[in-house]
């Protein structure tokens, strides 16, 4: 798992071309991702603080559990913060 950074925020993003709507992500990270009527993920647009360990863990599960490897976690760099 590596070191959990307490500062900063992250978002989880999807490559819509790779995504085939398996829907695993919504089961692995239900607090961040839900599915639309066609089974494709809709992701919460607000960045989540890295200190929220539960959300980060499920985001990582979703990222690794995607059969098409379409999800990725991205750190959000706020101006001024390290």
């Amino acid at each position, binding site marked *: 798992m590596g070191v959990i950074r307490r500062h900063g925020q992250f978002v989880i993003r999807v490559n*819509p071309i790779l995504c085939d709507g398996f829907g695993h992500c919504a089961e692995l990270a239900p607090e961040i991702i839900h599915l639309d009527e066609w089974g494709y993920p809709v992701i919460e647009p607000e960045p989540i603080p890295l200190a929220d360990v539960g959300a980060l863990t499920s985001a990582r599960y979703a990222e690794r559990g995607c059969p098409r490897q379409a999800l990725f976690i991205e750190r959000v760099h706020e101006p001024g913060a390290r």
Partner: protein
Amino acid sequence: MIPPRSLPRLFAGASERPNSLQQHHEIFGGSTRVDNPFDELQSSGLLGRGGAGFPTAKKVELLRSQRGHHKFVVVNAMEGEPAAHKDFRLLSTNPHLVLEGAEVLARLIGADRIAVCVARDNPTLVNHVERAIHERARQNSRGPAIDLHTPPWRYIAGEESALVNWLDGKESLPQFRRHKPSILHIGRGAALVDNAETCANVALITRYGAAWYRTLGTSGHPGSTVVSVTGAVVRPTVLEVNVGTTLRSILETARADTSPQAVLLGGYGGLWVGPDLLDTPYANDVLGERGLSVGAGIVVALPRAACGLVESHRVVRWMAHESARQCGPCAFGLPAIAEDLTQVIRGGRDGQAARTRLEQRCSSIEGRGACRHPDGVIRFLRSALSVFHTDLESHLAGAPCAGARSRQRYLAVPNLEKEEELVWE
């Protein structure tokens, strides 16, 4: 030499035939050049003419800082919009102006290849460009090599990542870009993609300088621009206008209906504008305050006899069909939206439910494709629903307007092709 403040600039010396290289030099005057083309380009404040209106100098600067020896300049004359004819007219009037601009851009970023992209569905244009390239190759063997490329015509094929992907030997499908703005690559070489009209403007700036260029246009959107006017016109027209003239005068010059029901600005991913905004200057800095933009220079006048919703429905259905079917929200969402709109137009009991569903679907699809195709359709649809809201109410009440009952249609929408016949490579 073209005097400042005068039009036409891009269409100078227009005749039946495309101007040859010799005629080109006669019209635009020998080969007078400014000393520092990049500084002139920066101070000219040229905005890209492909639709997004991104400052060209910034794009060039980004590509300049890239390493590598085999960079590309891609001239985008794909003209995906069915209502646009400006690249066609420009390249069949002054093809050498476009090629000269592309050579200038190639010198600025250090590219050794220029790829001119023209849809293969327009053989006349392919012929004109081929001839101009051949003529140039005979004149000077030094300088960047110019090649003609003819991808198949699709609405999406003109999107820059799709175009670059096609040039890279793959299908002409838009690509997902993780970081934006990102630099596109053909093989290992970075590629600068610019619209044909942008290239022609670059040629004018390097010939006469930024001060000359800024004598036309507004401070935030200088120069002249090419507008394709269709819809309620005597005949479809391509005009070169001073940026900042009002929409009404553009319609008058094109001999279009000057009291239209609405005007479509910027193409099929653009916005409908009601008749109250006809006196707005046609410039990105003024239109931007109202959330509008010039887009790819398309103006479609919709007469009072037509039904805006029916016309919008035809466009949305076609745009849904033109989706590359790569991303779920676009492949499934756009046909669903088109189906909802059909029900709204039919009205009755299901109409009201379809309307709320339509609005929900619009907000759920927005921003979820790899390219901006679904966003453009939704933008277009939302503006149609707000501009034609009186029509919408009467359709929902089960009393469609007279325009919906007539068979006359005003927007140019190609026929839907069979799905298995769509060509992507």
